[in-house]
């Protein structure tokens, strides 16, 4: 590594206080300054921060947006999500043709790299890609050609944005072609919001009263798991600790979910206000908004909102002029890891570590960020808080269904005429959702993303709520011509790529599930494979350490339940004598020996 690069690395470390808990910022900055975090750079970082090289490597090698080998000046990351692949497999070929390289390669001039990336949250405007931090949407063969031409002339991806998306996408700090596609506005999230009003109401109450209000409203976590928010705040407030933290989970990675992207764009004030109220309620002085790397284009905008609120006295020392109430927020960028949406993995990442989930207990409420009591909530959950304080918990709790109060954002994509964001009351049936989004003949709907369930028409009358069809927002619609088993295999591939590898069942089990499903898809399924998949899936579900592993076999388990016929059709009893191992091709296995022996097998001739 040249001396200039060495000093660049050193400067970056100094800029972040040589603080190893800020390792994410350090390695991200080195990656963007030098195109990679090379072996020498890792040594330099370790030296500057007084840590070990292998600890730096453990971080760099974990996140998909970081790498040890140089990438092109312009990195084109094509969304590998199921919906994107459904809508535009030809764009892959178009990029490969225009750039003259294959997926995973870099052009010889070092200008372009082309790679896959997991769902980037643009399913309603698929196919889409990230070009460095810039999102490009509604891709077509022609558009790809134009994009590559423009980048050759000027490698700044910002210049690609000719027309802006709606709302704040046109804000100079967002500068994006992304569309919000808000199709339905409900009373809570997209209702009237008056800046600072709910916060002032909260500050006029005691922290305990604020928590009680959230409890009375029966607000539950909107990320998918549905833990009661008030109870979480109560635990965090009651736990022993010198500092307390509020963490906002904006690592929206569940494929098919893109509500946080829209909320960050259009409701950032409401979100920050919700975090501030949470900070007051639990007695935290600091909040961290963990933003997924795929939404880096929103960072400057969100930080500007935070800065303006600080300037206006809505954040900082003595919030709203109330002495002793201190709360401020920083944005922590992720670097490409779905598992960091798991709250303890998110905490690990905020601490500058690889995104391995932590052992529970202790739970974050008692020992979270840097060992301090921490409340981690989803973006949408925080956005629900100001309206609850504004209109009262009773107003909130009268909406929705029993056990699932209020409204929910659904992000709908796939085979429907109106993909986008819908704010609905909890309790709506899936059939009504399908009608609303313009899908007449859905064959299957994936509710809750790959970790959720694949639902067939016989369950379309079930309700969207925590107790029936739970979802963090993702609703993917599949028409009659789609192959649900092929979709399940793609979901499994996603979990294989995105798992942390910490525990055995998830690390190995998902590889094995995928192997068998691929075999079935290749026409080599045996009747015994269904029981094999069921049992293996249950081992992974039961044995895995965190929510990722516990839900990762769902693509197989839920299609086995809802689309058993599709398996049965492909897992026919073999007609030949090779009934036990249809995946085994005896002719192929004998080929080498036959060629050495110079004759064909007498027993296994055609």
């Amino acid at each position, binding site marked *: 590594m040249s001396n200039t690069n060495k000093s660049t690395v050193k400067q970056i470390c100094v800029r972040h206080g040589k603080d190893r808990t800020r390792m994410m910022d350090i390695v991200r900055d080195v990656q963007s300054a030098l195109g990679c975090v090379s072996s020498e750079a890792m040594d330099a970082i370790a030296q500057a921060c007084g840590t070990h090289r292998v600890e730096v490597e453990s971080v760099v090698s974990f996140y998909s947006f970081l790498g040890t080998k140089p990438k092109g000046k312009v990195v084109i990351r094509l969304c590998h999500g199921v919906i994107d692949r459904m809508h535009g497999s030809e764009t892959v070929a178009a990029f490969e043709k225009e750039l003259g390289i294959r997926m995973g390669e870099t052009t010889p001039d070092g200008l372009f790299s082309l790679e896959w990336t997991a769902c980037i949250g643009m399913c309603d405007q698929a196919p889409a890609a990230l070009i460095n931090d810039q999102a490009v949407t509604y891709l077509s063969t022609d558009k790809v050609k134009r994009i590559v031409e423009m980048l050759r002339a000027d490698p700044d991806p910002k210049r690609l944005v000719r027309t802006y998306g709606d709302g704040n996408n046109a804000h100079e700090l967002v500068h994006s072609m992304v569309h919000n596609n808000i199709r339905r506005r409900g009373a809570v999230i997209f209702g009237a919001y008056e800046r600072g009003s709910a916060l002032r109401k909260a500050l006029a109450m005691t922290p305990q009263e604020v928590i009680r209000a959230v409890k009375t409203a029966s607000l539950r976590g909107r990320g998918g798991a549905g833990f009661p928010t008030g109870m979480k705040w109560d635990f965090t407030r009651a736990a022993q600790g010198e500092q307390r933290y509020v963490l906002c989970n904006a690592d929206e990675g569940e494929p098919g979910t893109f509500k946080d992207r829209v909320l960050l764009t259009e409701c950032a004030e409401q979100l920050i206000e919700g975090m501030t109220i949470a900070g007051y309620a639990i007695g935290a002085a600091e909040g961290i908004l963990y933003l997924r790397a795929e939404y880096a284009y929103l960072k400057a905008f969100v930080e500007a909102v935070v800065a303006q609120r600080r300037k206006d006295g809505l954040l900082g020392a003595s919030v709203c002029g109330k002495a002793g109430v201190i709360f401020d927020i920083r944005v922590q960028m992720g670097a490409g890891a779905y598992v960091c949406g798991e709250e303890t993995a998110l905490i690990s990442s905020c601490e500058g570590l690889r995104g391995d989930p932590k052992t529970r207990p202790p739970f974050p409420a008692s020992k979270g960020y840097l060992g301090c009591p921490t409340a981690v909530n989803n973006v949408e959950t925080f956005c629900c808080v100001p309206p609850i304080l504004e209109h009262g918990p009773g107003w909130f709790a009268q909406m929705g269904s029993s056990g699932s109060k209020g409204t929910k954002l659904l992000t709908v994509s796939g085979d429907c005429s109106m993909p986008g964001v819908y704010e609905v009351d909890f309790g709506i049936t899936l059939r009504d959702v399908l009608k609303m989004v313009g899908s007449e003949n859905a064959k299957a709907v994936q509710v809750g993303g790959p970790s959720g369930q694949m639902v067939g028409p016989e369950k379309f009358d079930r309700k969207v709520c925590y107790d029936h069809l739970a979802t963090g927002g993702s609703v993917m619609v599949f028409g009659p011509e789609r192959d649900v088993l092929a979709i399940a295999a793609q979901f499994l591939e996603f979990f294989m790529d995105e798992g942390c590898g910490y525990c055995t069942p998830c690390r190995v089990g998902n590889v094995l599930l995928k192997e068998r499903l691929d075999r079935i898809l290749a026409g080599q399924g045996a009747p015994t494979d269904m029981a094999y998949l069921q049992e293996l899936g249950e081992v992974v579900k*039961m044995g895995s350490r965190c929510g990722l592993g516990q839900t990762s076999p769902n693509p197989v388990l839920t299609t086995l339940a809802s689309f058993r016929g599709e398996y049965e059709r492909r897992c026919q009893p073999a007609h030949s004598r090779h009934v036990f191992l249809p995946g085994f091709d005896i002719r192929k296995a004998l080929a080498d020996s036959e060629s050495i022996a110079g004759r064909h097998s007498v027993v296994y001739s055609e």
Partner: protein
Amino acid sequence: MSDTVTVTIDGAQVKGRAGQTILQAAEAAGIYIPRLCAHNELSAHGSCRVCTVLVNGRPQAACTQPVADGMIIENNTEKLTNMRKAIVEMLFVEGNHFCMSCEKSGNCELQALAYRFGIAAPRYPYLFPKRDIDFSHPDIYIDRNRCVLCGRCVRASRETDKKVVFEFTGRGAHRRLGIDAAADLADTDAAVADKSVEVCPVGALMRKRVGYAVPVGQRKYDHKPIGSDIEAKRA
């Protein structure tokens, strides 16, 4: 005493102390809960999942879950044993484990678990990964073909040796045991007397030149199954 807790393990009442894990309380009572990543001298890791038990019907790793009064714990049941077997089989197919040519044979905890469970052959297809061997160090070698990613060496290096020789790198199926050097174990401060080498349950982290100091047939698990020492303590 308030810090004594009583739990039920497979119907038997077991007394434990607050702060103990289920694994520790069971062990003190002479009940063996099969485990691989757990080690009595190291902090808990909860990664292999072999020690999974049902606590009031919910799966939990016994090595990380603290005991609490009144817990109903299932350990030695058909369902759990089948799951544990499945996990051990996963570890066998994930790496390249050739017991017949491994110096650890007879002292290997993975092998011993397989024998205890009566695993003749894994139900899963072998994945035959390409893994590397680091023979650079004068006294120690790493054979990643045999590594089960239990993290014992990672913890022992920090907790006992007061070094940072090992850490995990990569993720998912690409997770591997990383070392504190660009390429070679020889460039780290690993030493032959390190606890990290001693605690490896399999033949991944080995001392050189002593592989057959104890003959096959006289090794730890050659005569009694793994866990027998714990079960012998049962009143």
